[in-house]
Every structure is written in structure tokens, then in C-alpha cells.
């Protein structure tokens, strides 16, 4: 952490308005992307971002054990998960393993080759458009580096359910990439 960041952190801890503005300016856009990946909806993402920043400013528990960005990332993803849980009082909409439609196995190398030219925003939208349950699992597995066991604990599901949801997410994304590439090729 550099000196400017240290001053900013101390300022946020003391409730300094300038430090808060600085923190917001520095991280708001990145954090909105995190929220969007989880919620799949821009309005919901803004709501999560709002509540996340309120939480950060009123409960500034950052201790310097990790990078500031990682800590904010953690707060926002936790906020997004809580938001999704609140949204669905009866639990996340996760399809049972039996209900998941059969999709062809992903030829990862082929997809990777096709996906190289796709811009960040498009990839982001693809993730956001995933069904809720597998979107959560995909985010936690890929971006939060959680294991399926940890995801299962977090979402109150079985580890096998997490694995199957992740496989389903991958298949859907591969299909979307293929469709996108084909569509772009026709243009």
C-alpha cells in the first residue's frame, strides 16, 4: 500500500468526507462490474453498490491484512450474495442436477480460440445473462477462487450441485460464444 492509499484508508476510518470520495472515485466502476456479474441486472447492481459503499463507510474494518481492492471486492461480493438471498427469500434459484438440460461438452480449446476477439463488455454480459444459480457458482469459482466445497457452504447447497452448476455455466457460455462468433461472422 502506498502512502496516498494509507492516508486515504486512515481518512475513511475517521470518517473523512474527502477520503471517502477518493475511495469511491478510485473503485466505484470496478465494484459496479463485480456487482453486475453477480446480479445480472444493472439496476440491482447499483443497489448493491450503494449498500456496499454504505457498509464500507460506516463499518470500515479494513486492517491492511490484504490489498484494499481485495477487501472491497470481498465486501461487495458478500453484499451481492446477501442481496440475492434477500431477493429470493426461499433460497437461490438453483436448478436440481436432474433438471439441468443436457448440453454438449465444451471443446475448451476451440472456444478459447473463438473467444479471443470478443471484447470485455460482451463477455461480461454473457456472464450476467447466465441463470441465477449457475451465475453465482461461476462467479465464486472463477473470480473469488472458491472451491466447490466452500461454494456449497456459502450457498447452502451440496458440493456436487456446485460442480454441476459450474459445468452447466461453462456449457452455456461456450454456446453463447459460439453463437456470438457465428453472428459476427455473418455481419
Amino acid at each position, binding site marked *: 500500500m502506498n502512502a496516498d492509499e494509507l492516508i486515504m484508508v486512515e481518512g475513511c*476510518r*475517521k470518517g473523512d*468526507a474527502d477520503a*471517502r*470520495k477518493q475511495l*469511491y472515485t478510485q473503485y*466505484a*466502476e*470496478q465494484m*459496479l*462490474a463485480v456487482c453486475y*456479474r453477480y446480479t445480472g441486472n444493472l439496476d440491482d*447492481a*447499483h443497489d448493491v*453498490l*450503494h449498500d456496499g*459503499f*454504505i*457498509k464500507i*463507510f*460506516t*463499518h*470500515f*474494518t479494513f*486492517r*491492511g*491484512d490484504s490489498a484494499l481492492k481485495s477487501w472491497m471486492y*470481498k*465486501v461487495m461480493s*458478500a*453484499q451481492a450474495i*446477501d442481496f440475492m*438471498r*434477500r431477493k429470493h427469500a426461499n433460497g437461490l434459484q438453483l436448478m436440481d442436477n436432474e433438471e439441468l438440460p443436457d448440453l454438449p461438452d*465444451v471443446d*475448451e*480449446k476451440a*472456444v*478459447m480460440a473463438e*473467444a479471443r476477439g470478443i471484447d*470485455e*463488455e460482451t*463477455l*461480461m454480459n454473457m*456472464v450476467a445473462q447466465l441463470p441465477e444459480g449457475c451465475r453465482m457458482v*461461476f462467479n465464486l*469459482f*472463477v*473470480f473469488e*477462487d*472458491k*472451491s*466447490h466445497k*466452500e461454494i456449497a*457452504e*456459502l450457498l*447452502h447447497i451440496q458440493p456436487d450441485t456446485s460442480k454441476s452448476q459450474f459445468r452447466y455455466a*461453462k456449457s452455456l*457460455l*461456450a454456446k453463447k460464444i459460439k453463437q456470438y462468433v457465428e453472428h459476427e461472422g455473418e455481419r
Partner: protein
Amino acid sequence: MKEKDDFSALFQSLGEAKMPVKEGFWEDLEKDLSAVMATPMEEVTAKRAVLRPIYRRWVAAASVLLVLALGSVAFWYLNSQEQDMQQAFSELSAKLETSPESNLPEADTPIIYNNSHQIVSNSHSNNTQATGHGRSSSKIMTPGLVAASLGDTEAEADDDDDEMVPVEVTFQIIERGYFQGGQPNNGLTNASNGNLVSGESNETATAVAVNGKKKSGWALKPAFGTSLPKGEYNMPLTAGMTVERKLNNTLAVEAGLLYNYMPVHNDENQSSLSLPVKLGVNLAEGKKVDVYATVGGVVEKLLGKSFSEEPVQLAATAGLGVRYKFTDNLAVYAEPSLSHYFDTDGTTRTLRTEQAVNVNLLCGVRMSY
């Protein structure tokens, strides 16, 4: 082991992605933040955040260490006291065995050992049976009437049966019963006219009155209780079991396991397991009611979250307790207490984070053995 694949790596670049925030978002946020900060809950949170994290950890660790140290000192003190008493009784027994038998009475006169730590000679009764508590059929002396020296086995004789002979005890005799009903010959057994004799020298030695059987000092305390609510965090319900070990007449240590159900308004309810360790100090002891103070620490873990997400939370607690005794072994108690929960690295909001200092009430039954 977490599987890694190229496909995941493709999307990992999105971790650094940015999206433009809608116009006026900061202004709205600032306004809402001011409103939130105006509430007492957030003022408390903000004040707590000023304390540097490193100090918070030290305070938490120091609180736990303090409790452990107090417990250790109390235990050491008790042990040394018991050893002293055992030694004193051994010496006493040796002295009594050498005392002249000419002073033995013709009539049997039981020594009554009562709750007030007094040795009383009662010449009224010819009954040589030990009386469980001594109070029921015997005259109980007040502390002022008790005299005599154990060092002097030639105590003053008194011809008047109605008079009590003073006995002075040079050490404390505790209630936990060194005079076991089944061991009448090992120590003080009988006395007449103020003389203390060894049980072996007197065939009426069964006349030792014992203040009940020896207690183990352990007690089981099923407990239930609650704490004050805060904002959207409703009153939690606590239930569990603690075990208390009496160290001496004044001190006791207590530990156990409590389950806390913490309902949250418009959100997922939370629950936690807590492990309290407390030191109890008797402040006043009555026939039916005891008053005591407790001080200690609590280790609490929020359930449903892994240790990496939500590490254990430490708390320091202090309180007062009132105990109503139905019998020697059964009592009910109420313990109001004040607790302070220390911040953790976790991000989940709970009643413990929003109301770090809280008032709690634990009630229950105390069963001693």
C-alpha cells in the same frame, strides 16, 4: 483441490473490468450516508472503527489472558489452602491421640459441626448418633460463645451440663466435610467438658455430627436467555449448558456451550455458537439467596459461514448473578451481564457487530453435586 482450466482463465480477465456508474450516484450515496450516520447505531459503529485494529486484537487477547490468569491464581490458592488444612488435621489428630483418657466423659456428648464453622459441645442428649446437620436437635452456639484451643486438650472442665464449653479453633474448618460420616475415628469424635479426644480412645466415637455429605464442587447449569435488540437485529435467544466448578467458598470457574439464535428483520436469520469461560465471585451468601459477580470471556462463531469468511469473535463479559436455593443442590439463577464484542475481519453484519456493547440476561437452573 480446486480444478483450474483455461476456460475459467479466459473469464478471469473480467475481474479487472470496469463499468460506468450512473449519473448522480455519488450525490445520492453521500446523502444517504449522512442520513445513516445520523442514527445512533452508525455513530457507535463509526466510533468503534477509530480504534486501530491492532489494539482491538491486543485488547481481546488481554481479556482472555486476564480470565485465564485469574482462574489459575484461584485454583492455586485453593490447592494450597487444602494442603494446609490437611496438614493441620494430621497434626491435630496426632496431638489428640496423646491426650489423657482420664478426661473422658461418662456420658456421651456429641460435637456438633454446623454451617457456621463452629464446634459445639452438647451435653443435653445421650444420643450418640451423629446428626446430619446438627441444628435440628442441638443447641447451636453463636460465634461469640465459641472458644477453646485445640493446642490445649486440657480444656477447662465444667460441671454444669447446661453450659457450653468454649472451643477455639486455630484454623478454618470448611463445610466440605473433612469429618466424613464413615470416618468417625480419624479426627475429632467426642468431647466432654471441653476436652477433645481421639476417636480411637472412645467407644462412643460415632458421635461426630457432620454437616452433610461432602460435595464435589461441580454444578451443571442449563441456561437460556437473551440480549437487547438493535435496529433490524431482533432480540436473540440463547440456550445451552454450562458447567461450574467451585474452587472455594468464594470463587468458581464456569465454562460451557451456548447456542444463539439471532433473528434479523427482513433478512436471513443468523445463529452462532458461543463458548463462555467465566470466573464467579460470591459477594453475599444467604440461607436462600446468593449474590455473585462474574467476569470472563466468550469465543463466538457465526454458523453458516466458514472460518475464512467469518472468523471467531471474542468478547469480554462481566455481570452480576442472583441465585435462589430451593435445596442445597438445586437453585435457580438470573445473571444480567454486560458484554463487549470485539471486531473481526469478517464482513457479515450481526447483532454482535452492530451492538458491540450489549446487555444480556441468562437464567436457568443450577444443579450442584
